[in-house]
Every structure is written in C-alpha cells, then in structure tokens.
C-alpha cells in the first residue's frame, strides 16, 4: 500500500475522507509506542514550516510536520526555547528518523523541566487537526490565556493520533536562561534520593530539574540570571549537604550534557528487557523501583520512573496497590499485543475514552487500537 503524504491541511482532510481502512499516523517515527497498528501509513512530513514566530509575544506557530530541530534553531536565534524540553526518544526506543513537532504534541512528550515549566500540553496554546471524518477543526489559538469553549488542545496533546491528525500547533515559548548549574548529590539509594529531591523541590530556589541516575546520584538543576544561579546553587548545596556529598557543576556544556542524559534516559539505552514508564507520587517511586528490581532512572523529583523489566513480563502485576500508572514503552510487538501498553482504565472512564474516540473518529480509522 502506498503511503499517504499530504502537503497541506486540505490534502490531509481529503486523504482521510478517502481512506477505506485503518491508517497508521506517523510524525517523525521516533516515538512510536502503543499497540501495533496495521494500516496505510499517513506521513505528516509534507506539512512543514514555521508559520509565525513572535519573540516579543513568546509564541510560535508551526505546521505539524516541522522538524523539532528547525524550531529549536529558530528559537535559539532569538535567545528563546521550548520550555518543556523535548526528549529525543531515538536512543531509548531504538528508533530512527527526524522528530517532528506534531509527534511531540501527539505524545505530550516532556522533559525534566516538567517539574517547573510544565509539560508539552501546558505550553500548547492551539491546534488545528483533521478528525477521523476528514473535517478540519481548530481549537485554542495563539494567546497565553484562552478559555473560549472547551479545551480540545489538552485533549489532543497525548492522544497519539487517535482523535485526529494534527496539521498545525501553536506553542508558548520562553526565554533561554543566561546561566545554569547542576548539583549532584552522591546517593545510591532511590529512597534517599527522592527525599533529597523533594527537599530541593520544596525550597523556594526554583529548581528546573530533579532526577536520579544510578551512576550519577541525585541531580538538581537551576537556571536563570548568572548571579541568581550562583546564589541559589550555594543555598541548595547547603540544603542538600545532609543528604550526601554535593558537587556543583557550573560549566554550561557540562550541565547541558547531564540533563540531556536525564531527558533522553541515556543510562537505559540499548539494554535488554522491556521498558516501562511510570507516573506516580514521588514518594512512591522508591517502592516501585524496588518492586521492579531492574535498572531504573528517576525524573520529575520521583514523579516519573523509567524501568527495565524482563521481556514479556507485566510490570503492573508487581506494582499493584501503588497509585499512579504504568505505560509499556518498548517491547516486542507480540508483547505489546498481549499486554496493554497504555494503562487500563476503570470501566466508566474507559467508556468516556471510547465515546470520545467514537465521536472524533466514527469509522475507527485513525491509529485504531493504539491506545487500547
């Protein structure tokens, strides 16, 4: 079957109207997760380009197929950036390709700065998309505050192409900071690490990253004006000293490298086993890591855990009784067909999700079954 590669929103709408069976929607193909979808491939790369960028209004509008790198370069030229820190998932998931902004939004992919600047969905101001019937829909806009009508913007973020195919997104951007520093606390134990991270995140020192890597210990990042970063680094070092030996990294490239490793979950690249992603209360993270038993990385102060689990095993069985939810991110297709990659929902919630999918995609053609 030939792939579909529309170059305009209009062509996208026509293509969806014309399909007779399932469509596998593809952005850059770097973060494909969920139940395997068999169907005609629909590529969004043909719809690319920055439509509008107003640095003074902190807003950028881009077509869904625009490479993330192109957006980041345009922002960097004005001393700005995407605040939610787009993760590069290629190393972790063993994928190749060019990450595109529509896929980032469809996955609500957010990096370590989630704890301070919010997730991708928090930076998303507006969307244009084509639903499963081939109708063009817009929601939100390009302004910071907008409560006009229902917030389908949030609904589309993280809907993995199951409700509609994004054609354009509007994002809030932020100034890039003048300086950054990273504090490392020598802690081996995840429980002690989360306690240290909670202390840092509960302080007034505006922490923009709080993670734990098995070989690097607990990491805390601060960003801002140089004098302010120096001041807060000193205060945080004192605050964290009771938790372990503290070292402070102030070199910009080194700080960026540390946090790229956290963002991309580098310690788990290329290692055997299935990869699970847990969202939970930070204080439950140590227990979750202990129960799963394998290699793990902790981000978001404990609110996010990446863990390797023996291939084919259902991690949820081991986590029963803990709150939060677990998503199977990387596993053989047969495992992803057998174990629901997305967290199973209670019946009443599942009925709402199914109802939304049915209304937005009545023929069930957009990534059918991907989210369960």
């Amino acid at each position: 079957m030939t792939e579909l590669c529309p170059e305009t929103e209009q062509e996208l709408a026509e293509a969806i109207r014309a399909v007779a069976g399932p469509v596998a929607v593809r952005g850059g193909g770097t973060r494909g997760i969920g139940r395997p979808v068999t169907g005609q491939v629909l590529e969004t790369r043909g719809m690319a380009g920055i439509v509008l960028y107003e640095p003074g209004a902190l807003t950028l509008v881009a077509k869904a197929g625009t490479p993330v790198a192109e957006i980041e370069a345009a922002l960097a030229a004005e001393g700005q950036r995407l605040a939610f820190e787009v993760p590069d998932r290629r190393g972790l998931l063993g994928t190749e390709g060019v990450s595109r902004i529509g896929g980032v939004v469809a996955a609500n992919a957010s990096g370590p700065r989630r704890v301070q600047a919010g997730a991708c969905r928090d930076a998303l101001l507006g969307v244009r998309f084509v639903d499963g019937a081939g109708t063009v829909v817009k929601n939100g806009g390009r302004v910071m505050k907008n409560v006009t009508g229902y917030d389908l913007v949030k609904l589309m973020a993280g809907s993995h192409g199951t409700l509609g195919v994004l054609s354009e997104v509007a994002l809030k951007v932020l100034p890039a900071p003048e300086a950054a520093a990273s504090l490392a606390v020598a802690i081996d134990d995840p429980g002690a690490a989360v306690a240290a991270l909670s202390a840092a995140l509960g302080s007034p020192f505006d922490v923009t990253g709080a993670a734990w890597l098995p070989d690097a210990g607990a990491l805390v990042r601060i960003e801002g004006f140089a004098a302010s970063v120096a001041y807060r680094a000193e205060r945080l070092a004192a605050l964290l000293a009771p938790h372990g030996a503290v070292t402070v990294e102030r070199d910009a490239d080194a700080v960026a490298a540390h946090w790229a490793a956290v963002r991309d979950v580098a310690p788990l690249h290329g290692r055997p086993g299935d990869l699970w992603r847990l969202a939970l209360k930070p204080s439950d993270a140590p227990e979750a890591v202990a129960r799963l038993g394998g290699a793990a990385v902790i981000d978001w102060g404990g609110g996010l855990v990446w863990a390797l689990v023996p291939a084919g095993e259902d991690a949820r069985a081991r986590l029963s009784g803990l709150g939060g939810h677990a998503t199977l991110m990387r596993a053989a297709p047969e495992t992803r067909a057998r174990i629901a990659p997305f967290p199973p929902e209670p019946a009443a919630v599942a009925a709402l999700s199914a109802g939304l999918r049915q209304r937005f995609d009545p023929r069930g053609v957009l990534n059918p079954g991907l989210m369960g």
Partner: protein
Amino acid sequence: MDLPSPDPAIMARKSAILARLREVLPADSVIDDATETRAYECDALTAYRCPPLAVVLPRTTEEVAAALKICHAEGVPVVPRGSGTSLAGGALPTGDALILGVSRLNAVLETDYPDRFIRVQSGRTNLSVTGAVEADGFFYAPDPSSQLACAIAGNIAMNSGGAHCLKYGVTTNNLLGVRMVLMDGTVVDLGGPWMDAPGLDLPGLVCGSEGQLGVVTEAWLRILPKPEGARPVLMGFESSEVAGACVADIIKAGVLPVAIEFMDRPCIEATEAFARAGYPMCEALLIVEVEGSPAEIDEQLGLIKQIAGRHDPVELREAGDEDEAKRIWLGRKSAFGAMGQINDYMCLDGTIPVSSLPHVLRRIGEMSKEFGLDVANVFHAGDGNMHPLILFDANKPGDLERCEALGAEILKLCVEVGGCLTGEHGVGIEKRDLMGVQFAPADLEAQMRVKDVFDPKWLLNPAKVFPLAVSAGRRAA
C-alpha cells in the same frame, strides 16, 4: 439574552421531583422556599436573573451522585454552582433547572508536602486552599481577583487565571486530577496526584468545560513553595502605545516577572478618586512584580528599569518596603471597586497577542467615541488578557444595549487580531452568542461532541457556551 423557556412538564412535576430529592438528601440540603432561593437567581453577572426550580446543597460526593441520578431520571436540567462569582453568567439558572451548589463540600482531604499536592473538596474557596498550606511555606498559585470568595469548583469550570499566572500558569496548569460525578450519577476519578493523566488528558478536558461535563466534587491541586520575597515597581508612560512597547521589550529581554499589570488614564483617575494610592496622573502605567531573594529582585528590577528607561517613563517608583509595595498594588486591586463607585460597568475579558496591544488600545479608544461610552482599561498585560471596562448607566434606557453592542465590537476586534473572546472569565451566557465569531461550525461541533459523550441528554448547564440555535437539536433530544 435568550434563555430556553422552562419545560412545563418539569414545572408540573416540581413537587414530585423535590420529594424524590428529599428521600436521598438531608432535609436542610433541599431548598425551594422562594425567599431562600432568591440568592441563587444570579451570579456576579447581575444583569440577568432567573429563579431556579430549587436548590440542593449536598455535603458529600455520594449525595451529589444521588441528586444527579434523580435529575437524570426525571430529565431535570442541573446548573452546578461554586460560590456564584462568575462574571459570565456561568451559574445563572433557568426556571426548570435545579441549582446544585457545592459550598458545603469545603474540606481539605489530604495535604502532602513531599509530593507537593493538596486534595480538597471543590467548594473550598481559592484563598483558603493557600490558607491551608501557607504556614508550611507553600501556596496554590492561581489567584483570581475574587479569590477570597470563589470556589475551586468554579475555578476548574472556568479554568480561572489571575494576576500571577504569567509565571505560574492558570488553573489547568495547576490541576492534577478531579473526582467528578457524571450526570447519570456515575463517579469517576480523572487524573490523580501524579504529573500526567493516563490515557487521554481528561482532567485537561474537564478544566474549562463550564460545568457542562460533570460536577467536580474533589480536586488534586499542585502546591508550590513560596518564593523568598516579591517586590513591585510602578512605571508611568505618556501613552498606552509606549507602555505596550515596554511590555514587549521586558518579555523579550528574558525577564519573567510574576505579573505585569496595566492601567490607562480613565482607570487611574477613577482609582485615585476612590483609593488614593498616590498614582501618577499619566496616560498609562505598568505595575511589574518580580520574585526571589533581595539580591535577585534587585537584579531583575534593575534590568526592567533599564528597559523602561528606553521608553521615557514619566514616573518610576520602586517599593522600598512592604508598605510601599502594598500602596503600589492598592490602586490596581481597587480598580474594579472604584469603577463600580462611579458607574455601572461591563467588564470584558478578551485576550490578544501582546504585539497587538498598541493597535487594540487605539481602536478601543476610537470605538468608545463612536458609541459615546467611556472605556477604562485595566488588565494583565504580560499575557495579553485585556479587561476593558465599559461604563454605562443602567437607569438610562438603551444604555445597556449600547454597552453590549460596544462590548461585542471590542471582542470581535480581539478575535480579528488573533486573540480570543475570553481569557479567564469563561463564555457562560455572556459571550455565548459571539462564539461564531471565533469558531467555525465544525469547531463548535467538535466541542459539542464532547458534551454528547459526558452528558448525552444535555442536562448539565445546557443553555451556556454554545449559541442556542447551534445546540437546539441536542438540547431537545
């Protein structure tokens, strides 16, 4: 303002419906005495009133579910109500609707500092959420002007903002999850005390849905550590355009103040007469507040003053101490009260791209002359959330209609420059009939499909948000 006429079948069954409600709710939770229900005839949009069928004030999620189940079976419309502070008519009843007030659901259920969240019942007031955690150094960030009175339930329904959301975001950015009762009485938990929702972002969808998808009875809210300190600076300019340009420059320079507030001359004059905050008499002033340690504040304010200097400020006043900080905020915080002293007014809430500020302010000035009604501007400039106050005389025949016509023109202008009808107050009934200005029929259809899923019989707050003609087929179904 059109509201659907009450369904005579419901009106005829009123006593039977009340009897059923009294079977499942305590006696003091069901109110139908005409003098007592009068308080529920309107919200803060007082121009529109309608006595409800009756009022229920449940104390638990179970009682909310029991009441909704009966209304669902009886086909009775339900209007959820927080504290009734909506400026958009979000809690205005129809004659055949039951008001479901959550004011008695006001407990703090769980406070968790290591995990930085609080779980509260939804009738709790915004300010008392912060009140529950501030002794321990935390706060709940969204701070609508009505925060002393407004309920979290209403904040969630309208996705409320506030002066400090430039840095901390609005309700949706601080809401982790909700416990919600669907119209048929089913209780669902959407999200929870973790940083993203499993599956579809249903808490994100519920936030801002104006009480049309379900009745939120509990919420998990993110709490944040209080900053070390905060300090405002006040700057006066010789025109609104110059002040607008200064705002854009501050944002571009990489400073992220917690608030940038704007007032124009008509507003400054009214406020001074009322609150005597000692503001300079100029065409426009900005109040910019930054946070941090004293040295961090000095550094940021230094940069802001340097930027302002390039725009020839006629006044530059930095708070030297707590008292002076309070004086700087005094006028801004009394602005709405001050306007209310001298006139009736209608408060608009459109948002525009910050870059369009000078153009929009100029156009509003021109329209004000055309319509012969004064307009004062006071708003959150950092995020482009305008609050033009149109002054009118409610006792003068035709003035309200003229005021509404001017309001509509101003909101159309906001949309025309790339903005929206409402930034933080919500659509309610007030902007319902303007939705077609911002949205194409397919856009509205997509939103209404969401309501079809959550509330197939369209019984929850049914006459709001969507133009009546657009939602007619669904409401009748």
